[in-house]
């Protein structure tokens, strides 16, 4: 295969399909992954190719879905479990954090739990407080869980392929606002190293560190800022565990300014970690504190106006940079 243009959704399906063709031990398990084809269509028609024993529709039992995936992963299968919304992760946190994440450690390294938990999060569909969250912070705070959050079509494919090869449990969070996004991917090209951030834009004035959909907001903001004479670099973390500081450190040291952009709520979340970490690593080079542009510390409303403004927007990113004294207002 050469480079193809496709959507984030189809790139995900391609990754799942190829892995299932290559390895009989890969199974999909979750609500509506089979006959329905996935709530967001990612697994469409896969049950027809792979059958109901490998594409497993479940009852609405999130805790046991994750728990069954744990047991399957310990006994020879490579389960890709699906949580329809990351908002449901709360009911699975015991199986995820007390079982999947700790089994290798508690049992002294005897065995791992090579499973992927695919899910999706974020705002954008007026889906309300229980279907619009960005809960990667819970996952990132749990040692033992890898965490991947693709922002691009190419990463939808490659990160998912890589996630399915990890020896440890990976939580793989897609963004509901990206499924129909188009982009290019070369499935045969060697992917970027797992755990390595991608520099999507260079820029000498400021480094914006982000992941998932907010990467696109950051890029849009950077474009606008460029027209105002400010050059912002944009880094897509791709994975939050592992977390790549080797890429970020020299960039921030050079620019002297960093902003982190995350859709998760600000307090005690991913943005806090990134800000604390960048500060630790680059303290002497920083001209300002690392700027946290993150989700508001509130639930998400169904009202589209409130929903949109409950998480960072390109406007907020631009306005913040202007406040630094860079750009238009400067």
């Amino acid at each position, binding site marked *: 295969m050469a480079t193809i243009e496709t959507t984030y959704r189809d790139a995900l399906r391609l990754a799942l399909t190829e892995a299932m063709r290559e390895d009989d031990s890969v199974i999909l398990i979750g609500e*509506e992954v089979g006959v329905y084809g996935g709530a967001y269509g990612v697994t469409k028609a896969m049950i027809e190719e792979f059958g109901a024993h490998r594409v497993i529709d479940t*009852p*609405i039992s999130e805790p046991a879905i994750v728990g069954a995936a744990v047991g399957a992963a310990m006994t020879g299968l490579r389960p890709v479990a699906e949580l329809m919304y990351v908002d449901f992760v709360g009911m699975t946190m015991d199986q995820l954090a007390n079982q999947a994440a700790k089994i290798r450690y508690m049992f002294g390294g005897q065995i791992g739990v090579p499973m992927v938990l695919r899910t999706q999060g974020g705002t954008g569909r007026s889906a*309300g407080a229980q279907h619009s969250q960005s809960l990667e912070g819970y996952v990132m705070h749990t040692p033992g869980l890898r965490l991947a959050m693709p922002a691009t079509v190419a990463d939808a494919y490659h990160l998912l392929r890589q996630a399915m090869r990890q020896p440890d449990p990976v939580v793989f969070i897609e963004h509901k606002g990206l499924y129909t996004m188009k982009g290019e991917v070369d499935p045969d090209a060697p992917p970027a190293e797992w755990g390595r951030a991608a520099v999507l834009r260079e820029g000498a004035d400021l480094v914006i560190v982000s992941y998932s959909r907010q990467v696109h907001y950051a890029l849009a903001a950077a474009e606008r800022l460029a027209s105002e004479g400010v050059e912002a670099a944009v880094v897509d973390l791709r994975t939050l565990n592992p977390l790549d500081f080797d890429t970020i450190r020299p960039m921030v040291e050079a620019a002297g300014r960093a902003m982190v952009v995350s859709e998760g709520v*600000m307090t005690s979340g991913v943005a806090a970690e990134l800000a604390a970490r960048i500060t630790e690593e680059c303290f002497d080079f920083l001209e300002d504190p690392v700027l946290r*542009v993150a989700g*508001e510390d509130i639930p998400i409303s169904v009202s*589209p106006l*409130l929903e949109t403004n*409950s998480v960072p927007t390109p406007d907020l990113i631009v306005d913040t940079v202007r406040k630094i004294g860079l750009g238009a207002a400067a």
Partner: protein
Amino acid sequence: MATSMTAPRPNTRLYDFYREMRRVRTFEERVGELFVRGQSAGSMLHLSIGEESAAVGVGAAMQAGDTFTTHHRGHGIFLARGAEPDRMMAEIAGKESGYCGGKGGSMHIADMSLGHLGANAIVGGGIPAVVGAGLSARNLGTGTVSVAFFGDGATGQGILYESLNMAALWQLPCLFVCINNQYGMGTRIDRATANPNLHERAAAFGLSARTVDGLSVEDVADAAEEMIADARAGRPGFLAIDCYRFFGHARKDKSPYRADGEEAAGRQKDPVSAARTKLIVSGLASVEALDALDKEIDAEMDGAIDFAVAGTEPPMAAMFRDVYAPGEPEPEPVSARLSRVLARD
């Protein structure tokens, strides 16, 4: 129940049930319209068409002061318990004039004054709250019953069994109503469990439990009356109501996973037309009278759409409100924090 009608009408239970069921159905049809007109907040709209007897039959058996929670397909239940269609539709449209000021939407409608402790977008999420309400009723001696409404899909959720067990153990005034429309999204009940006789599970936990055919709203109401009276006396129950989900799971789902024949057959199980036919056949109401009633209801629900469309989105200032109680400081907006941080010198 809040409906304003002018024409004299037969004073029978079935007629009242028909009227309420028709109101539910028409309301739901209008929700569909709202969506098509691009006026709903999002597409996560779950219509209860085909399930009206559950809402109305059980709703009629409840008393003022009784409380309840619903699942995501709960418009009809709330209507049957006295909701104003205007404020419901406005909430579904995400407007400030809605029951929750536009923050909740279709899946999070609630109204404490009518005992509605809340719809829920988490399958099973609202069930344990009725155990708590049952504890309140017991400890405070209110004499009220609390009813959990949920779908067959929620029987996959462990929290249901935890709740059933507690209610039975503590003999709480609770009723668990499972609206079995045969589907959880695209999964028919026989692909979700090896034993679809759902009430047997509740019986095994020590609740009085039964299944009733939702085609007859009168049967539903009879069962609910008995079981609510029992619950009020400290004998909690589980009532499964068999029905059929006429349309897709949510607005965009066309149910490709169902054979046409199945849908056609399923829609025969129509409690609204069954009630209508019975009213006419038994001479309790004339076709003309019912047509007139339907028109009245059409007008009422058209009004709800107009009300919703005329509403405004909640103001930005509402965004930081209600995270904590009035009087508590609101969370600091990100932009305010950033301004503060950057304005330090």
